[in-house]
C-alpha cells in the first residue's frame, strides 16, 4: 500500500471515532442546557451578579460601586472587567505581530495594485467611506451613552478601509496617507497609551494623595482618586470614554494592517 493510501485510511478511521465522540459530548451539552441545568430558559429574573451590575452602572446614590456609564456593557468592558479587555487587545496585538512575521515578504516589493473599479463606484465609495468613518467616530464618542464603543467603531472603520482597498486601489490607500509602517507605529503608540491610562491612578498613590488601584475609574472604597465623571451636564464615565477613543484607533489600525498585509502579499507557489 502506498504511503498516501495508508495515511488516508488512518484518517478515515480517526474521523469516525471523532464524529461519534463529538455527538455524545454535544448531546450532554444540550441536556445541560435544556434540562434545567441553567434554570428554566429564558428566566424571569436576572442573575444576582448581573442585577448588581445593572443597578450600579449609573448610580449616583452608591458612589463606591458605580462607573457613571449609561451603557452597562461598556461599563463592564472597560471598568468592572477592564483587565480582560486589556489582555484581549494584547491578543489582537499578538495576532498583528504574527501576521507581520508570517508574511514578512510583503514589506518588500510592494507593487501598486490594479486600477480599481469604474469611476462611479470609486466616487460613491469615497462618500460612503467618509460617512461610515464619521458615524463610527460618533459610536466611539458615545460609547458610554448609547450602543457602541471602542471595538465596534474600530472594526467598522477597519472594515470600511478594507472595502476601500478592494473597490478602489492600493494607490488610493497610500495616497490618503495609510501605510503599513505608519499603521504599526500608531498601533504600538496608542496601545502604550491605553496601558498608561490604566496605570494613571497610581500617580495619586505616588504623590501620596490617596490609595489607588490599577484601572481605577471613580471613587472606590478606601480610595479618593477619581476620573472626571461629567463634562458639564453630559455623563463622561471617566476612563470609559478615554479607553473607547483609544481602542477605536488601535482596533482600526490593527484590522487595516492585517488586511493590507494579506492583500499585498505576493507569491503563489515557490516551485
Amino acid at each position: 500500500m502506498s504511503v498516501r493510501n495508508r495515511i488516508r485510511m488512518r484518517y478515515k478511521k480517526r474521523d469516525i471515532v471523532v464524529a461519534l465522540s463529538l455527538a455524545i459530548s454535544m448531546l450532554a451539552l444540550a441536556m445541560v442546557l435544556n434540562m434545567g441545568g441553567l434554570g428554566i430558559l429564558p428566566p424571569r429574573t436576572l442573575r444576582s451578579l448581573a442585577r448588581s451590575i445593572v443597578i450600579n452602572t449609573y448610580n449616583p446614590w452608591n458612589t463606591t460601586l458605580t462607573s457613571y456609564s449609561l451603557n452597562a456593557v461598556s461599563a463592564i468592558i472597560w471598568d468592572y472587567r477592564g483587565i480582560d479587555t486589556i489582555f484581549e487587545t494584547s491578543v489582537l496585538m499578538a495576532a498583528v505581530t504574527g501576521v507581520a512575521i508570517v508574511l514578512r515578504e510583503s514589506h518588500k516589493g510592494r507593487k501598486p495594485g490594479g486600477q480599481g473599479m469604474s469611476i462611479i463606484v470609486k466616487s460613491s465609495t469615497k462618500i460612503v467611506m467618509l460617512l461610515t468613518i464619521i458615524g463610527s467616530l460618533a459610536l466611539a464618542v458615545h460609547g458610554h451613552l448609547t450602543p457602541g464603543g471602542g471595538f465596534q467603531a474600530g472594526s467598522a472603520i477597519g472594515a470600511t478601509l478594507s472595502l476601500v482597498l478592494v473597490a478602489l486601489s492600493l494607490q488610493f490607500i497610500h495616497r490618503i496617507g495609510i501605510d503599513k509602517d505608519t499603521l504599526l507605529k500608531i498601533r504600538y503608540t496608542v496601545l502604550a497609551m491605553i496601558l498608561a491610562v490604566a496605570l494613571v491612578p497610581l500617580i495619586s498613590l505616588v504623590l501620596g494623595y490617596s490609595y489607588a488601584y490599577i484601572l481605577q475609574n471613580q471613587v472606590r472604597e478606601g480610595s479618593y482618586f477619581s476620573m472626571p465623571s461629567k463634562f458639564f451636564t453630559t455623563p463622561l464615565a471617566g476612563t470609559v470614554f478615554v479607553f473607547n477613543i483609544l481602542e477605536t484607533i488601535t482596533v482600526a489600525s490593527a484590522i487595516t494592517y492585517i488586511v493590507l498585509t494579506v492583500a499585498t502579499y505576493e507569491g503563489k507557489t515557490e516551485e
Partner: protein
Amino acid sequence: MEDLVSIAFSVAITTFVINMIVGTYGIFVKHNVIKKILALIIFSDSLNMLSIAIGFRIAEKYPSPPILTTEPRDPRDLTQFADISVDPLPQALVITAIVIGFSVFAFLLSLAVLYYKYNGTLDIRTSLEVEENEEGFQ
C-alpha cells in the same frame, strides 16, 4: 403563552448546539485548511450566540437592552430598569470573545497562505506524506 416561548427558545438553543456540532465535526474531520477555519468560525459564532441566549430573559413587556436611555432621577428608576433589562455580562464577554476570535482567524488565514506557498495545496495531510517519506529514507 409563556410555555410556548420557553419551548421555542429551547429549540432555538438546541439549534445553536447543533451548529456547534457541525463546526467541531468540520474542525476535526475536514482536511482543507480553509475549510477547517470556516468550521472554526461557525463553531465560535454559535458558541457566542449560545451565551447571549443564556443571558436573555422574560420581562413584563419585551425586555430592553442593558442601556439606560436617560439619566436616572430616583433610585426606583434603577430597580425598574433592572426589572426589564437583559443580562449585560454575557454581552460584554461575547464582545471580548469576538475580537479574540477575529485575531486568531486572521493569523490562521495568513498561515494558510504560507502553507499553500510551501506545499502547493491546502490539504493538511500532504505535508505529512512528505515527512513520512523523508523518515523512510533515513
